[in-house]
């Protein structure tokens, strides 16, 4: 049987999952944490603590600033030292709450026992409320507030929940370890999200380079299904390893053979996609009252002597994590937050981890060297690689000509920034660099046009 995967484009970078055998371990507490107020898509959270306040781990320190926002909790117990701007990993100022760590005291409601709670609450609204109160956001990369995703707009109905266990980025293994070591919690979390959405079917999609994870989750699902009907309708699906399978749009195509229209949302085709670590966070928030205050981070790279999958408290300085494992290696030239395809190069190691931090990858100059650019040979490899079916060679040319109309007509706004084009270009042309800039420009024009159209529509009734 043909291996199932998404239908357009994709590339096959080397797996490089050298940290796959490293068990999840807890990172010791740092002396100070810096918890950012904007760790999610949407409005920053509003702080509800003041300098000098004593806080416990799991205590709310900031509330949602708008509908599209999320609660933020203290990840440690200690004293609030300051609330103010601090440089993030790119070097931009971000509002953070600085807390000096004192002991490890948790708020009372949090159940820190390891026993598995498998009973599913019956009220979807209560589940969503607990997810909201737990500050859960999507941990697959976009950090979209989960409670917003689980409240589809009226008229839209979810037909299938997809739990994303692809981890298609090379090097990263924290999702894989979570599937192996916390499979039960992930499956219970899946059932919780399924209940919250009121949907019958859920698919846990895992790439076939992780057979142990597929085996484990299949076993867990079977065991839980025999206990409670709440677990029926959960399936495990093996997908062919191909980047960017874990991209939301690509995953929906692979699992449901449906495609989200340009500018649309997954719910338009009846899908909701959540990452396995988000399912785990949902489990902890709903069943254990434990808000999202820690997450798993893969620390890896061929030049890094000690590979690890660490459970890190939110706000831990990156340098603390690295020093715990022996410090930055001499031959590392670039440190990436996240995977090598879509991760962000870190400019400031004093920045702190956030809810969405999934990996710290060390690359040597040789590994991450950009080729000197030569002429386009029109091989079309970029167009073959693009999972959105775009033509990067054309977009690159149009962007250089500044032709925004043609860029929009050729769908530059559909670009998902996966990096497949630049990865595959044999001439070393910095396609994505150019395209992402053009994309931003075109999206700005589209937004301005939409706003103008809206203003015109609102102005009309008055003149009539």
């Amino acid at each position, binding site marked *: 049987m043909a291996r199932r995967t998404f239908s357009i484009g994709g590339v096959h970078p080397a797996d490089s999952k050298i940290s796959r055998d490293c068990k999840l371990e807890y990172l010791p507490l740092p002396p100070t944490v810096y918890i950012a107020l904007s760790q999610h898509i949407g409005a920053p959270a509003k702080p509800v603590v003041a300098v000098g306040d004593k806080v416990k781990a799991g205590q709310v320190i900031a509330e949602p600033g708008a509908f599209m926002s999320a609660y933020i909790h203290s990840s440690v117990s200690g004293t609030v030292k300051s609330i103010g701007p601090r440089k993030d990993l790119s070097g931009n100022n971000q509002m953070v709450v600085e807390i000096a760590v004192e002991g490890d005291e948790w708020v009372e409601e949090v159940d820190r026992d390891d026993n598995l709670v498998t009973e599913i609450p019956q009220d979807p609204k209560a589940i969503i409320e607990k997810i909201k109160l737990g500050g859960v956001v999507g941990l697959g990369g976009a950090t979209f507030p989960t409670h917003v995703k689980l409240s589809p707009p009226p008229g839209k109905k979810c037909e299938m929940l997809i739990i994303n266990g692809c981890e298609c980025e090379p090097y990263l293994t924290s999702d894989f370890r979570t599937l192996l070591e916390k499979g039960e919690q992930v499956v219970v979390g899946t059932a919780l999200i399924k209940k919250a959405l009121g949907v019958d079917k859920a698919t846990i999609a895992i790439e076939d380079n992780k057979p142990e994870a597929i085996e484990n989750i299949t076993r867990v699902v079977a065991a839980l299904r025999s206990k409670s009907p709440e677990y029926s309708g959960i399936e495990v699906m093996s997908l062919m390893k191909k980047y960017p399978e874990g991209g939301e749009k690509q995953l929906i195509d692979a699992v449901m053979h449906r495609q989200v229209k340009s500018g649309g949302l997954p719910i338009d085709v009846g899908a909701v996609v959540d990452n396995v670590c988000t399912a785990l966070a949902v489990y902890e928030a709903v069943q254990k009252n434990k808000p999202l205050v820690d997450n798993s981070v893969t620390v890896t790279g061929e030049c890094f002597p000690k590979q690890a999958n660490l459970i890190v408290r939110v706000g831990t300085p990156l340098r603390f994590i690295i020093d715990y494992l022996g410090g930055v290696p001499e031959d590392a*030239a670039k440190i990436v937050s996240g995977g090598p395809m879509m991760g962000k*190069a870190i*400019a400031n190691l004093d920045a702190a981890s956030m809810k969405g931090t999934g990996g710290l990858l060390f690359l040597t100059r040789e590994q991450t060297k950009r080729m000197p650019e030569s002429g386009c040979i*029109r091989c079309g490899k970029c167009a073959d690689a693009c999972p959105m079916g775009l033509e990067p060679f054309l977009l690159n040319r149009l962007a250089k000509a500044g032709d925004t109309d043609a860029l929009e007509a050729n769908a530059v706004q559909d670009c998902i920034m996966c990096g497949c084009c630049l990865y595959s270009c044999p001439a070393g042309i910095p396609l994505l660099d150019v395209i992402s800039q053009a994309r931003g420009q075109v999206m700005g024009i589209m937004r301005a046009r939409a706003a103008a159209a809206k203003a015109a529509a609102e102005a009309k009734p008055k003149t009539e």
Partner: protein
Amino acid sequence: MDKILVSPNPHLHSKTTTKVLMRDVVIAMLPAVAVSVVFYGWKELLVLAVSVLSCVLIEYLITRFCLRKASTTGDWSAVVTGVLLALNLPPTTPWWVVFIGALVAIGVAKMTFGGLGQNVFNPALVGRVFLLISFPTYMTHWEIPQGLFGVDAISGATPLGAIKEGLMQPGATVQGIMADHGYSYSQMLFANIGGSAGEACAVAILLGFIYLLVRKVIKPWTTLSILGTVALVSCVFWLADPSRFTDPLFNLLTGGLLLGACFMATDYVTSPMTVKGGVIYGVGIGFITLMIRYFGSYPEGVSFAILIMNSTVPLLNNWFHQKKYGRA
């Protein structure tokens, strides 16, 4: 670590570079090169050497001294043109004719357009067609291969040439001419029956084609479209009048069709970017080739067909686009 690199994603790059791709094309042509040397001996070696060396040298001189840029010969594309040009010439071509071919291929067809990636027409084919028109005597002097380093070369006609010439006689039929020359399909498949050096052995060309597919250098659709069109259209003509029109298998195995379909029509620069465009491009090449073979004044038309279709590539790229995600 004293400095930290910061750049946008992706942070890794595929190992496949222009140089690797071009070198793969050269490797893919090696079976055909080897067979041509075995069949035609030292004369063919000379043609190959002159062609490759002149192509590389001319590109080097033009980039360094006319354009005053860094030399681009390191990308192996000049070597590809050199080998292709040599495979498209009769093994008896004098060295200075080969050199003029290389000069036109690289100097005119490639570098005046701006070098690799910018040229509209396949350089090796422009070189070949220039020679065909300028030096028809050298370019249509065919020899029946006499084995490795054989001395007693016999002049003869290519099967396509023999048919074209033969059919001009009143009352001649294709079957009669074929029988007179004793052409057999197994001979066409494995050993040469006269023609350009690279056309010597169909199996050697297919071997290279398979290598290109396995290495994912090219996709098979353009080639299959050319061969399919030739087979289909010639089948129609042949069924209508087998005494005047050659059969599909004959058309597939003779002349430069396989060489052109596998190595020249698949040239990245001068072929369409999309599969759909490539298939239509292939249909055009197949059809024009057959029309020249059946009705033209030249016995063979692959070179002309590819060059004509080269000129449609910008249009095909405009008309046919990749299937986009989530868009009709």
